[in-house]
């Protein structure tokens, strides 16, 4: 692994289903982030983690949960997906919150 990986690349999901988007980084970065990107709205922060064992809410956290059990992984869970969660989801990491973030390739999620 080099950098940040996300899985799956894309997913079509029925409304009401549970879904976990995976994110793994191998740079030993302390901070990790989840964004959603929608046309005309740019990147909006969902949740973040400044270090393993801690998480925080971003701009649009409702309907999403995260965990940070270790430095490398930061999964994002949709407990019961709704169509408004159709979006492209990006995971990012940085060595610190005052440093540039490195982004993964994204997951395109469609909720029907």
């Amino acid at each position, binding site marked *: 692994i080099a950098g940040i990986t996300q899985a799956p690349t894309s997913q079509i999901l029925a409304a009401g289903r549970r879904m976990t988007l995976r994110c793994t980084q191998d740079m030993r970065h302390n*901070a990790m*982030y989840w*964004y959603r990107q929608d046309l*005309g*709205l*740019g*990147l*909006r*922060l969902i949740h*973040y983690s*400044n270090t393993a064992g801690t998480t*925080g809410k*971003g*701009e649009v956290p409702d309907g999403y949960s995260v965990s940070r059990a270790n430095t490398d992984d930061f999964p994002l869970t949709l407990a019961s997906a709704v169509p408004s969660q159709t979006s492209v989801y*990006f995971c*990012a990491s940085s060595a610190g*919150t*005052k*440093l*540039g*973030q*490195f*982004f*993964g*390739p*994204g997951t395109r999620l469609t909720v029907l």
Partner: protein
Amino acid sequence: GESVGLHLPTLSVQEGDNSIINCAYSNSASDYFIWYKQESGKGPQFIIDIRSNMDKRQGQRVTVLLNKTVKHLSLQIAATQPGDSAVYFCAETRNSGNTPLVFGKGTRLSVIA
């Protein structure tokens, strides 16, 4: 209210010309800024950053200027190339401490060959 925004949603530039992409911010407490480039179908890519104790920072073909008096940030791309075509985002931290970055909505740069 507080915002990170861009003056122009789209910008078309002739190949070889210089490009200037602008960004405004409203919180004088913002002290760290980053420019990102996002090509179609890809994640944002870090270009250059600047801290509030600087007015200018240069990279390879790119320069970021920070004017704290008017709360304005710009990205200058020299000798724009077709590969520069992308959406460019500015981002800021709004407070000291561990506050995550907040992104603007982006400017699409189109390079005309």
